[in-house]
């Protein structure tokens, strides 16, 4: 197999890891004002993702770095082209990350409620915008023959892309609700499970519409198989939610997101960023790629270290496998004002 194809697949894997993992911690942030009735319950929710959210976010950083190294032209066109959405995502991720760490540092309701807003908005913005961004990549954007993005900001806001944003938002909400159901105990667990069904049904509708649309426009046999698998996994996940099997339900949304993203990448290949201009040039795995030498070096590094990362990150989830309930939350220790 061509090294450029290998790296296209590896970058797909990194985005799959990012969305399947940070997807649920976005969901938890989004559900904070919905599922929790008091501060202790909010802390239960935040502490389910406390030890892992930062590690989940690193998947994004590595996806960005790997794109820079393996497909410099893709990295350059994408990041300079999707300028304002990425700026919004950056600001959202900044305030959200600080919020998790600082929220409990003062025993003060106003302080906490401000950080709660930061967590909610910081989870909402990327949940929608990643969907919008990926939809635009698939749909094609104005890229000229110098591989420069020449569209503006509003070019990115089209019905297909907005549908993509709605889909990622609903999927992450479902994923987060099932994670809360899996990782908590008591009333909040039941509330989360009850909410997962209607939100999951809406996510399924959005996914069928968006993935179906994608399949019609740019789909391949491979992407069709992946999309069908994603739909089946999502529906199976919701079906077992009804029967109270939270672990399998979470596996369902995890697989659904993974296969959905895999399908999007299959539909994209061999382009990495197609142009919508007749006179433009599409970025492909070939014309955007780094040299074979660089790709070989990177492949060696990835083959050695990716399994190691997966092993210790998996171990973290094992260490923190216990459900958290309100009686596990210690008294607020933060200093008063």
């Amino acid at each position, binding site marked *: 197999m061509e090294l450029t194809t290998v790296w296209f697949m590896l970058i797909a894997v990194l985005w799959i890891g990012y969305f399947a993992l940070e997807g649920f911690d976005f969901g938890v942030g989004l559900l904070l004002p919905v599922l929790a009735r008091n501060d202790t319950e909010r802390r239960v929710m935040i502490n389910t993702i406390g030890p892992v959210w930062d590690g989940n976010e690193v998947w994004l950083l*590595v996806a960005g770095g790997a794109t820079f190294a393996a497909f410099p032209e893709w990295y*350059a066109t994408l990041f300079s082209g999707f300028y304002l959405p990425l700026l919004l995502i950056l600001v959202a991720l900044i305030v959200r990350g600080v919020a998790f760490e600082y929220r409990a*540092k*003062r025993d003060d309701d106003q302080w906490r409620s401000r950080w709660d807003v930061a967590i909610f908005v910081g989870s909402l913005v990327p949940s929608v915008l990643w969907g919008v961004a990926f939809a635009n990549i698939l749909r094609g954007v104005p890229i000229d023959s110098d591989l420069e993005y020449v569209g503006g900001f509003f070019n990115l806001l089209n019905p297909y892309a907005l549908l993509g944003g709605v889909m990622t938002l609903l999927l992450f909400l479902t994923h987060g609700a099932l994670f809360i159901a899996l990782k908590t105990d008591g009333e909040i667990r039941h509330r989360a499970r009850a909410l997962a069904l209607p939100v999951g049904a809406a996510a399924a509708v959005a996914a069928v519409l968006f993935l179906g649309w994608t399949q019609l426009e740019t789909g391949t046999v491979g992407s069709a198989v992946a999309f069908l698998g994603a739909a089946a996994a999502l529906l199976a996940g919701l079906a077992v939610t009804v029967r109270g099997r939270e672990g399998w339900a979470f596996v369902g949304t995890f697989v659904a997101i993974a296969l959905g993203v895999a399908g999007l990448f299959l539909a994209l290949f061999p382009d990495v960023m197609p142009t919508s201009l007749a006179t433009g040039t599409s970025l492909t795995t070939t014309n955007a790629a780094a040299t074979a030498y660089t790709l070989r070096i990177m492949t060696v590094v990835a083959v050695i270290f990716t399994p190691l990362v997966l092993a210790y990150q998996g171990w973290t989830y094992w260490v923190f496998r216990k459900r958290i309930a309100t009686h596990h*939350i210690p008294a607020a220790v933060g200093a008063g004002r």
Partner: protein
Amino acid sequence: MDPTDIARWQFAITTVYHFLFVPITIGLSAIIAGYEITWLRTGNDQWLRLTKFFGKLFLINFAIGVVTGIVQEFQFGMNWSDYSRFVGDVFGAPLAVEGLLAFFLESTFLGLWIFGWDRLPARLHAACMVLVHLGTLFSAYFILAANSWMQNPVGFAYNPDTGRAEMNDFAAVLLNKVQLVTFPHVVLAAYMTGAAFVVGVAMWQLGRRSSDGDRPMYRLAVRTGAAIVLASGIGVAITGDFQGKIMTDVQPMKMAAAEALYDTEAPADFSLFTLGTLDGEKETFSVTVPGLLSFLATGDTQGEVKGINDLRAQYEKTYGQDPGAAYYSEDGYTPVIPVTYWTFRLMIGLGVLASVIAAWILWITRAGRSPAGRRTVWVAMALPFLPLFANSFGWIFTELGRQPWAVFGLMTTDRAVSPGVSTGEVLTSLIVLTAVYGVLAVIEVRLLLTYIARGADPLPEPTSDVDEPGNDRPLAFAY
């Protein structure tokens, strides 16, 4: 303003800001790991209380360091897309490896350390902080390798067909001679910074407690911190000296700019300070050390140091002086001299001052003494700011001293910027990020002060080390 200037301001602001938090993270993670291991070895609870106390301060600092790091990775593509296209084949690799080796290690094991007090056996828990520190070192290594390549590009060939620099020797990029001296210099400076923070915080606590049982504990922190500041300060000076010689070799203009040396001299003097414009036109007053610049640049007090005028002529010959030439720069390959001149001095001066203060603190706290008079406390509290700002000045010197180049000899900065990004977009980004960073700085400093003032908490009632089955007690740590 044109987009290049705005993008440069953004890079300067976000990078200098990010690098206020980075050295504290590198330095404190090593010190906290040291405290926790010492606690395990000695069983003395003072070390555990220091571990937890500085652990809290570490996390307040780390939170901002990690989120501002995301901006660093994104802005190469956002603001500097032509740079990214040109160097991606070389420069992207260390960045990607940094993410895979360092960021995963740091974030995963820090999560385990924060929440793992009652979940992990004590040795494993301490090992987590060691791994966090290892992650910070990996991170420093790869990002500094990337930066060293910009100072001294090696291990690549320019491909005229693709119009970009293409890597042909990754080992050469990782073992760049600039990198081999920059890495120890930066990491030792980070140890200085983290340790100076410990000294300042612990001395403040000593000053507030005229007579209580916690004094010996804070004295331990002051002593360990001051010893690390002094030892690493000496290391910073030695590695800095090596750097000077390598810099003279690969970027002679930067060395000339560090002294505002216009005419080639042998021997060349080093001025401690200068009153005047530094433009080489008018006579200036300065206090100089004879032959010192020659020594810094060549290792010989009589050595010849090339001046700006000769170097400019040489660079113009090599790279052309025609406005249409690929490397043309209005400033004639010369950086902004007052900036390089003063940042070079401030970097060295603050670093030396910090080492001297650390030596003084070690002296006055010798043999069981723990003085905490007003003056001592004030000096100790000023200490963290010296290496912190010395770091900033060092980076401003390194990066502005390379100008007008983004990659020395290969690409000028004004050709590195994103051609498709509008002035309005870059300006929006600059304003938004600066505003967010400013607000976060205020929140962070207030929170740090609150927690520093609270001091080390007493230890909770002892519980079993490891989480046992059926144990349903509250979490040892929770957000």
